[in-house]
């Protein structure tokens, strides 16, 4: 078949914060750069980021990148690589100031400097006391970032391919990445982007869970493509959860609701937090509350026909208080849970929020894979940044406001690395013969299959399996069952059928292709989680409890290492954590407590 080939120096897949930041580096260096996105760039999920971006500017009070580094290592529960963490925290000031020059409307102090607000986990002097480090633009930081960087790209002549979906990586016989295949949604045409550099900035894959705060676009397309092309995924067992998302919808109910007197109840209306945290009760910390909720559900005390959520009750509060102190909660509850919280409790469940693992990279944004006993083998021509990548700076748990920082720093460094690698004017490597065949056959199978499984059902099966077996609090028996079950669900996903056979604007086909990406992330997560027998950061197991020998259930002797999952045979191997920063001494291992 004759497939059109578009030749670019670089293609970037994804036009959220990381993709746009990379594209600026490439286009401003004069390279012919294409950015592919399923949606218009300013509609990327980065728009949902409100908290701000961390940088030790020291505008409000004394701060230092080394203190930021300490907080990040501690937040990561020592699983983050300290070379990458030093690189990111040091670079933070530079990338924030650059962003300001791009026109980002940061909040300001009276004397015109960038205003900085406090945020959980940001401390001065190596964990001593809170420090104001987060830079924000009101409650629309992500939105403003996307706009500033999109404009900068337009000026730099970046070519945007909007409403295009990348399908597969193209690697040649020596393993070099030489481009991607992609589908233009408007025509259904598959096209080859033949490149010298390919950067993935496809975001997270939070849609693998039934309850997720992630927008519907977050289907892990980059991770699916990488896995199918033989690139392993790192630390996929680590996902950040929020205790109270509306069951079934995922929309967040702020923790302020419990602060105002909201009570969590199980199916016999019992205020179960009294058993788990007799003093703090419903005001216990996020992880304690999440674990208690998960335990109630696991032990059959959940509510609803599937007993898969608990209730957040504010019916005892004065309606005037609810309206005044918790603005928007009544509307969210009516709109997304279908209940008026003045009269009925809100169904809630721990909800997935952020993916710490991803495509393994070094701090220069180059994708690295294990081979011959080394874990640092660069895949020529391939780069990744942002939530889809694992540098690894978040380790087992991300520090608040480090996600926007991650996409700025590593978006830029991936772009810089590509510019450096291309500067000798090397020609495009040849495309392998029939470079699009694999993608075409995947699309043709979906288009032509009869009597297959429904996309909606297969997706729901992934999400239910993940939520029930690998949620915020993990149990050995459930993980084992989940690992077997997700492989069964995979059979369903490999057999998808769509009813709409149209060539143009076939959204059913796009959703089928997205589901084929979701399953790769789901397998990686379940199998990596089952294998890690300790608790660390966001991965908390019932059978790895807090003991004097293993505080918080963390076992550094056996598990201070990154998980590397290979799609082929679901093989797992482990790579050492880099405890050596670039220029300063290591942040020594310690129990993580706040």
């Amino acid at each position: 078949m004759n497939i059109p080939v578009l030749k670019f120096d670089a293609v970037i897949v994804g036009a959220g914060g990381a993709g746009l930041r990379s594209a600026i580096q490439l286009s401003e260096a004069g390279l012919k750069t294409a950015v592919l996105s399923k949606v218009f760039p300013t509609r990327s999920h980065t728009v949902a980021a409100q908290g701000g971006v961390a940088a030790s500017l020291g505008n409000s009070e004394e701060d230092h990148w080394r203190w930021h580094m300490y907080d990040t290592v501690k937040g990561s529960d020592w699983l983050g690589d300290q070379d990458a963490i030093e690189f990111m925290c040091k670079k933070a000031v530079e990338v924030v100031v650059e962003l300001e020059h791009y026109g980002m409307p940061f909040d300001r102090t009276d004397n015109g400097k960038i205003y900085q607000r406090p945020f959980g986990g940001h401390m001065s002097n190596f964990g001593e006391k809170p420090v104001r480090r987060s830079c924000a633009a009101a409650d629309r930081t992500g939105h403003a970032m996307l706009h500033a960087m999109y404009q900068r790209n337009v000026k730099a002549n970046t070519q945007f391919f909007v409403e295009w979906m990348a399908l597969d990586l193209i690697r040649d016989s020596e393993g070099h990445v030489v481009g991607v295949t992609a589908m233009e949604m408007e025509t259904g045409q598959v096209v080859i982007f033949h490149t010298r550099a390919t950067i993935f900035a496809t975001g997270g894959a939070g849609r693998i869970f039934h309850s997720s705060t992630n927008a519907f676009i977050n289907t892990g397309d980059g991770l699916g493509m990488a896995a199918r092309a033989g690139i392993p995924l790192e630390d996929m067992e680590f996902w950040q959860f929020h205790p109270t998302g509306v069951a079934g919808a995922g929309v967040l109910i702020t923790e302020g609701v419990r602060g105002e007197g909201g009570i969590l109840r199980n199916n016999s209306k019992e205020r179960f937090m009294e058993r788990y945290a007799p003093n703090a009760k419903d005001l216990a910390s996020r992880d304690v509350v999440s674990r208690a909720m998960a335990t109630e559900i696991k032990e059959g005390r959940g509510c609803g026909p599937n007993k898969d959520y608990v209730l957040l009750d504010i019916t005892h509060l004065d309606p005037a208080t609810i309206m005044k102190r918790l603005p928007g909660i009544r509307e969210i509850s009516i709109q997304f849970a279908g209940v008026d919280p003045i009269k009925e409790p809100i169904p809630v469940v721990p909800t997935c929020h952020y993916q710490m693992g991803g495509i393994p990279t070094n701090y220069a944004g180059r994708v690295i894979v294990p081979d011959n006993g080394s874990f640092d083998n660069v895949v020529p021509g391939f780069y990744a940044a942002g939530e889809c990548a694992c540098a690894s700076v978040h380790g087992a748990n991300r520090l608040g406001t480090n996600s926007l920082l991650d996409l700025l720093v590593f978006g830029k460094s991936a772009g810089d690395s590509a510019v450096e690698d291309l500067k000798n004017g090397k020609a495009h490597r040849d495309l392998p013969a029939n470079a699009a065949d694999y993608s075409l056959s995947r699309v043709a199978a979906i288009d032509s299959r009869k009597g297959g499984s429904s996309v909606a059902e297969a997706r729901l099966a992934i999400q239910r399996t993940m939520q029930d077996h690998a949620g915020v609090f993990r149990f050995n028996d459930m993980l084992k069952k989940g690992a077997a079950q997700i492989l069964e669900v995979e059979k369903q996903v490999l057999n998808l059928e769509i009813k709409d056979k149209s060539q143009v604007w076939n959204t059913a086909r796009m959703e089928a292709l997205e589901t084929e990406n979701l399953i790769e992330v789901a397998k990686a997560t379940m199998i990596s989680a089952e294998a890690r027998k300790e608790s660390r950061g966001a991965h908390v197991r019932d059978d790895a409890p807090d003991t004097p020998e293993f505080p918080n259930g963390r076992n550094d002797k056996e598990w201070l290492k990154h998980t590397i999952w290979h799609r082929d045979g679901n093989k797992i191997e482990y790579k050492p954590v880099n405890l050596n920063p670039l220029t300063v001494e290591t942040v020594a291992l310690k129990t993580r407590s706040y």
Partner: protein
Amino acid sequence: MERAAYERLRWRSIRRGLLEVDIALTRFLDEEFGKLSEAEQQAFAELADYEDLELWHLISGQAECEDARLAPIVAMLRKS
């Protein structure tokens, strides 16, 4: 609305940056859109072109719609 135009609108409505908008528009398309007049469908398409935050503020009642043509659709979105 012809199939391709509808499918394009559907993709643009349910692949957003914000989950809240994804859900609200999906539900509206599934339950209400088919009952609208052509002019109302057009008005919905215009709203779907709004930025995520802007649209969410309208749907959640944090902002009021000043365009008289679009306001009835916003009212329906709030109810659905």
